[in-house]
């Protein structure tokens, strides 16, 4: 009986560890590369000078609509972009991405976000 209980407890613990695994910073919601919206949860900002490689994002009306580490930039009608303090913060998005100030959508202030 004790052996069986230990085996079950071990299995439960391993399951909990599995459930706690974290994914990387970018996701289908915000940050993944894309060509079309099918590559994203909601919409794809096509690859170009502003979004090199394409950029998956979600529409927003204010910053509370955005996932953590992103804010609602007043571009493309209001989309979530990664916040930053300097260009180094944006290197995880690839070459030609930098940190620049844009209007906060619905906020009337400037915010620093990663863009191409």
């Amino acid at each position, binding site marked *: 009986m004790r052996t069986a209980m230990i085996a*079950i407890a071990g299995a439960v613990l391993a399951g909990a560890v599995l459930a706690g695994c974290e994914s*990387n910073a970018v996701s289908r919601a915000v940050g993944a*590369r894309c060509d079309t919206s099918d590559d994203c949860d909601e919409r794809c900002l096509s690859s170009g000078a502003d979004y090199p490689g394409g950029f998956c994002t979600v529409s927003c009306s204010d910053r509370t609509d955005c996932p953590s580490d992103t804010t609602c930039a007043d571009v493309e009608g209001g989309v979530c972009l990664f916040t930053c303090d300097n260009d180094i913060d944006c290197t995880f998005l690839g070459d030609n991405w930098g940190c620049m100030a844009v209007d906060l959508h619905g906020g009337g202030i400037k915010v620093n976000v990663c863009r191409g």
Partner: protein
Amino acid sequence: MSRLIAVAVAVVAAAATAHAQPAPIASAPDPAALAPAPAATAPPAPAPETSPSSPPAAPDPAAAPPSADDMGDQDISAQLGLATGGHLTPGGLRIAGHYLYQLSDRDWFDGTASFTFGSGGPACFRDRSNTLVCDHGLTDGTGVEVAASIRRMFTPQGQFRPYARLGIGIGAVRFSGDDVSGVAIPLHGGGGVRVKVAPEIAVVAEAELALGFSNFNQGLGSALQLGFAITAGAEFRLR
């Protein structure tokens, strides 16, 4: 890969060997079979006299093998439960059928066919280095698998009889929302408890951990398989 195949072959070989040598039936020993054979040159021995003062020893119930109490030589089981996966391991509703064949007093071969039905939404994306990454939820994907295991039954604890199970399987995995498919070879380890509710029917509940690897299309290549499942169902004695 070759090591896992070797383990699978060993499990099947063990099952086949046990099949060829059925487990002894728990019963009183046959005195004729235990008596030494008379020597060819020895004179005929007188017939043994039965002494009323020394009756044959009754079998000790505590020494009886656990297999004699409720499980048959062959059982089948149907179970229903929940499996959790994540990333590239399917999870969701788990339906499993088991065929049990007795190998020894405490061990049964457990052949299993299981199906996992999870949601089918897309969860793969290309990260910034253009590598496809799949981050499925705990109950996403579908899977079908056959597995060969050894189930060891432990000493009953009142009405409950615990057991442990260890085996290996091979299966197909699919995440339809991303058009991702693969083949998985997981090892299974777990345990459960069996409760007899009728002469030939028992209720079983078990938990298991599956750990192995898989190979997927879409350039995903090899991936870890790590899942957990809790199931319960009924077990029927065939003979």
